[in-house]
């Protein structure tokens, strides 16, 4: 994080070339509604065109990893909620998975189903809201966003009745989940899931052929396949560039291998494809949800052998990653046999996806930066940790 001195600065294009005109260095953010949090970009402009763009992080840095090194294994669980605060349940899952790998814990069948249901609901609400934010960044003053929030409300109600909190769920535990589904939850979830296809049709009808959306997104911020792979981009941004890589299929963590679903792929890798991939992914999530809500078995929700108090895994290390809504979310843990992790590392998908931001933006207008950044889908809680 570099300290901002001036918000706007005029700089010469090259030393001694003043007559050709000047570049303008603009500090975009950190208090800017389009940057989705406290995020800054040092942008160098040639007129309205982007010449250079340097992302600046650290405004929300609280050294989550250091805090976790001084916390018991269980004590870090509520902190993971606060990484990507839109998707606390997938964060919980990734961390629980890493600890389960580290200590060799088995998860009962019912807990696996609950994990899949909550993770896919999280993915659905994240993508719906992201599309809402993206259109708002383009000037569609709130209508798609409000539609998305209306549906998200149903999902948050489900989360609240299950976990007691709407966003900071703190629900997964090592070897299962914290509490069992309350009575009537599955019926409520089925009703919500059954109502989503109608919402998606409406959403698609509203946006997919919208002229402004197409003009603002098609051909904007094109990310090539090779560069996306090399830059470690993951999640919908990667798949919009046509790379078939989804951790749910590649790693088959949990019980994802039991569900038939497709991975939507983009063709051009532009902002429109990133939007479309998310829309299609929501439909695939609904397929998984329908199957999981139909097949969920009865049984225990947590491995009874796992200790709540005094949990000390044997020395060693483990890395586990999952397909979070934002991308490939990984947790790397080193245990030295004590009750705290020796090393606790989060592999944040939002941060790594920002690697490509400069390349995507160069040559476009300032207004397009807002749209491109919106389509990458970042949450600063995770970027800065």
């Amino acid at each position: 994080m570099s300290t901002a001195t001036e918000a706007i600065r005029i700089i010469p294009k090259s030393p001694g070339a003043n007559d050709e005109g000047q570049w303008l260095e603009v500090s975009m953010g950190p208090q800017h509604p389009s940057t989705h949090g406290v995020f800054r970009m040092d942008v160098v402009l040639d007129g309205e065109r982007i010449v250079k763009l340097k992302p600046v992080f650290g405004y929300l840095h609280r050294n989550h990893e250091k805090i976790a090194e001084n916390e018991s294994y269980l004590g870090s669980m509520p902190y993971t909620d606060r990484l990507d605060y839109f998707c606390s349940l997938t964060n919980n899952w990734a961390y629980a998975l890493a600890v389960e790998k580290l200590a060799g814990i088995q998860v009962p069948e019912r807990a696996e189903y609950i994990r899949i249901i909550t993770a896919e609901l999280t993915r659905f609400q994240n993508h719906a809201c992201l599309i809402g934010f993206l259109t708002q960044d383009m000037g569609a003053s709130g209508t798609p966003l409000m539609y998305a929030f209306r549906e998200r409300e149903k999902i948050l109600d489900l989360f609240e009745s299950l976990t007691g909190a709407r966003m900071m769920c703190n629900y997964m535990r090592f070897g299962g989940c914290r509490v069992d589904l309350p009575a009537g939850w599955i019926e409520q979830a089925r009703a919500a899931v059954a109502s989503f296809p109608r919402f998606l049709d409406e959403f698609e009808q509203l946006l997919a052929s919208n002229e402004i959306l197409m003009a603002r997104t098609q051909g904007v911020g094109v990310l090539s396949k090779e560069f996306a792979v090399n830059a470690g981009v993951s999640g919908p941004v990667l798949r919009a560039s046509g790379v078939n890589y989804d951790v749910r299929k590649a790693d088959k963590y949990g019980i994802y291998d039991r569900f038939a679903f497709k991975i939507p792929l983009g063709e051009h890798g532009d902002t429109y494809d990133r939007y479309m991939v998310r829309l299609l992914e929501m439909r695939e999530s609904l397929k998984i949800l329908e199957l999981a809500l139909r097949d969920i078995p009865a049984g225990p929700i947590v491995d009874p052998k796992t200790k709540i108090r005094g949990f000390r895994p044997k020395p060693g290390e483990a890395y586990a990653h999952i397909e979070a809504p934002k991308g490939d979310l990984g947790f790397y843990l080193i245990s030295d046999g004590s009750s705290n992790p020796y090393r606790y590392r989060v592999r944040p998908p939002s941060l790594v996806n920002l690697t490509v931001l400069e390349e995507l933006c160069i040559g476009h207008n300032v207004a397009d930066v807002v749209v491109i950044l919106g389509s990458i889908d970042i949450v600063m809680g995770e970027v800065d940790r």
Partner: protein
Amino acid sequence: MFGEGILKGLAETARNFFGSYVSKDRLTTVQFPEQRLPQIEAARNFPFLVYDGEDWQQGMRCVSCFICEKECPPKCIFIEKSTDKKPDAVGKPQFYPKVFNIDVSVCMSCQICVEVCPFDAIKMDVAFEHSTNNRFAGLLWDKKELAKPNEYYRQIHPIEAAAVDAALAEERAKVAAKAKAAADAKAAAIAAAAASTSVEVATEK
């Protein structure tokens, strides 16, 4: 088609407006202070200490074992142990907290203290209107402010409380049975001792 989208949007608004007279589902706004949504069983806000019976000091379940203080992720619990003992929820003599403070400005409502407590002494409250004009003292709750009766717990988390009550009743019955057995054994021993002495006395005579 120009204007089609606007008409569609207006139709949706009109449907919601007139529909709100007919269907309760379309009337989503809750007039908050007057109206409230029904409580959810799993809801959680800040922790409180459960006590049994009438006297909050006598019936407090907490035995000041420091587990919640150690496990609390943001370290917002502060406990000082008593020097004497009093009977706990199941009747065993135990220490009790001389000081039990929770700084709710630091608490993040994660419920880990509830999960790790082996004595069912700390539970999550659902009350949320706690604004105060003092940032420090007003948000540092002591033992008296935290103590709430078991009836209140039953009221806010009925299903969970029923399970806890059943487990505690079983535990109490076990302790009582053990105490009774011990008392019986003691009485029997005394009786036996008395009998043997009387026999000795008799033989002496």
